[in-house]
């Protein structure tokens, strides 16, 4: 079972479904901290099932490490289920917002960059405009590089949101859990 692939460090996405409780985020992150694993991004929101929260955590680790983390996450009393996914097993996106000076619109260059990158202008103010781009990190980063010469006043990128490719639904798992 111990293949090379098991010990190769790469990006994993961990999806954790929990009860909606105070301190849950803390309980979840402690598991990573204890193993000295750095979380690259984290998002949390209610899932498709009311009252069930979904945490999506991206990290660099080996399969061996991440499997153990998932075991320990599932041991948490209020975790319903945790899944680990390789990059190709999920569809994922991040959203990025870029604030640049309105003056940069003058010669049409910024507009072109926006169009070419499939980004859009979210709002325009007399002072600044906000550009939005949804995509993978590489894509939002590429736009960042292209906007840089115009002067970026502010930049923010969300954590990853992801859904999995397998068709089994969370509600099916929940029914299984409740039936036990």
């Amino acid at each position: 079972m111990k293949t090379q692939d098991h010990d190769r460090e790469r990006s994993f996405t961990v999806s954790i479904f929990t009860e909606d409780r105070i301190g849950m985020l803390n309980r979840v992150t402690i598991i990573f901290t204890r193993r000295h694993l750095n979380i690259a991004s984290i998002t949390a929101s209610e899932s498709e099932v009311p009252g069930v929260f979904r945490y999506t955590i991206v990290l660099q680790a080996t399969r061996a490490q991440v499997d153990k983390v998932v075991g320990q996450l599932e041991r948490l009393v209020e975790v319903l289920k945790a899944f680990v996914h390789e990059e190709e097993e999920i569809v994922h996106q991040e959203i990025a917002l870029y604030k640049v000076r309105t003056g940069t619109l003058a010669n049409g260059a910024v507009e072109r960059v926006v169009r070419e990158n499939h980004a859009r202008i979210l709002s325009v103010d007399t002072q600044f405009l906000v550009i939005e781009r949804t995509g993978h990190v590489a894509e939002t980063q590429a736009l960042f590089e292209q906007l840089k010469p115009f002067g970026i006043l502010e930049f923010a990128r969300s954590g990853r949101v992801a859904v999995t490719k397998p068709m089994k639904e969370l509600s099916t798992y929940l029914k299984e859990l409740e039936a036990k």
Partner: protein
Amino acid sequence: MKTTQCTGAQAVVRSLLAEQVTTLFGYPGGAIMPIYDALYDHRDALEHILVRHEQGAIHAAQGYARATGRTGVVFATSGPGATNLITGLADAQIDSTPVVCITGQVASALLGTDAFQETDVMGISMPVTKWNVQVTRAAEIPAALAKAFHIARTGRPGPVLVDITKDAQLGLLDFTYEPCTGFRSYHPKPELSHSAVQEAAHLLDGARKPLMVVGQGVLLANAEEELLRFAEKTGMPVASTLLGLGAFPTDHPLYVGFVGMHGDYAPNIKTNACDVLLAAGMRFDDRVTGDISRYAKQAKVVHVDIDAAEINKIITADVAVHADAKDALRALTALVQPRQHADWLQEFSDAKAVEVETLAQHTGTTGELRMDEVVQLLSARTGGEALVVTDVGQHQMVTARHYRYRSTRSNITSGGLGTMGFALPAAIGAKLAAPERTVVAVIGDGGFQMTLQELGTIMQSKVAVKVLILNNRFLGMVRQWQQLFFEKRYSFTEMVSPDFVTLAKAYGIAAERVEARENLEQGMARMLGHAGPYLLEVMVEKEDNVFPMVPTGASVSEIRLA
């Protein structure tokens, strides 16, 4: 369901009564005063033991739990009261001990404001509890406690902390108590996989040199009978981890000893010679495995554990049986072929003979008393039937090696955390849980001084524990490492101690010191024959070492005999 109005504090006490709690350990303070006040009305039904330090309360609760399997209960106040519990929580967490701690907290309006004696108890205790919860409303108290007891004792047991704000204690509610029987995110009892059991049975049937290592999971599952039946049917040798001691009678012909760093020679070296290793209710602690890259590599590993997170955590299992040890052993016994392994068992006897002979060359009966002689005498005089609580250090390993445990729940020690100061309070709890048994705390001169204030608890609550101090005037285990691995540079391990006998007498506890071999028999007899608590201090050799030993980083087969 009938309901009656009461305060949150009264609800706490009523909930404990509903959970059939009869004994608890604690220490009062401002933030938990309403609960103590409610307790006053029920002090006949609920025996509260006033300890001398909250660490003592939780260790006593742990001893209570481990002596009987019942959940230990602790009361402590906010701030320092709660933080004093942390060592015990960590100990109970790593050694899977069911404990429910109830801590008082400042009023909810003051949370997060650095109010007097306010500490983030939730944050601090989160990593060292199986579950914790903060209750800020009186009405939530019964359900929170019901859930706490359910979580503490089911599945892999562990400590739970319930932090109750003062306003919740003072608030009113309509009290009804409904025991918790489960909730959707928690599935403590895994379903036994029949295919896994079949695979395991198949491996065992084909094994020529099978070895079983049992851990505390067998005790926690109350599976001692099932273990005995399984072992006798398969005829396979049975070894034990430190916390598993007592799950299998040590005088049984199939018992081959204790594994790990200071375990027996035979089961350690045979771990690297067996063809199937069956691990039941144990978690491959590094003190058990030594270097894992050279641990049982030749063997097929069958791992039975109730905690899925333990499977494949350290040692990859060829067959994983995610189950309660009782269910798994019962199912396995039904499937396996009856076997005998005379030649293989002979190999263990031969290895044992080597160990006995080598160790004998290094010990004499002329110099100062040694720890092993004292423990052997204790074992003989109690017929292996005492409940022995050990602290941490050389005396702990010597006791594990030389006490001939004959019955279950007779060995209580701090295994995973190695908490010095554990034994004295844990013995108090154990004695209260099992008053009919002889309870002996074996402690080093160092560890005794970490919680010796609990002599006051022994005095006040008249707890008839026997305290056996093996005094080598050193922090012996650390000194041993300094001798073996740090060129005898005894950096701060020599310890000057007070007169323990006089100290015990100050607490009204009968006590004596034995220095000479010829006085040991009588001293031991007086301690065991005495009706109440007794402290026996035995002066032992200063620089004795515990062998065998698997040095850190070595393989179990590189175990040293001298």
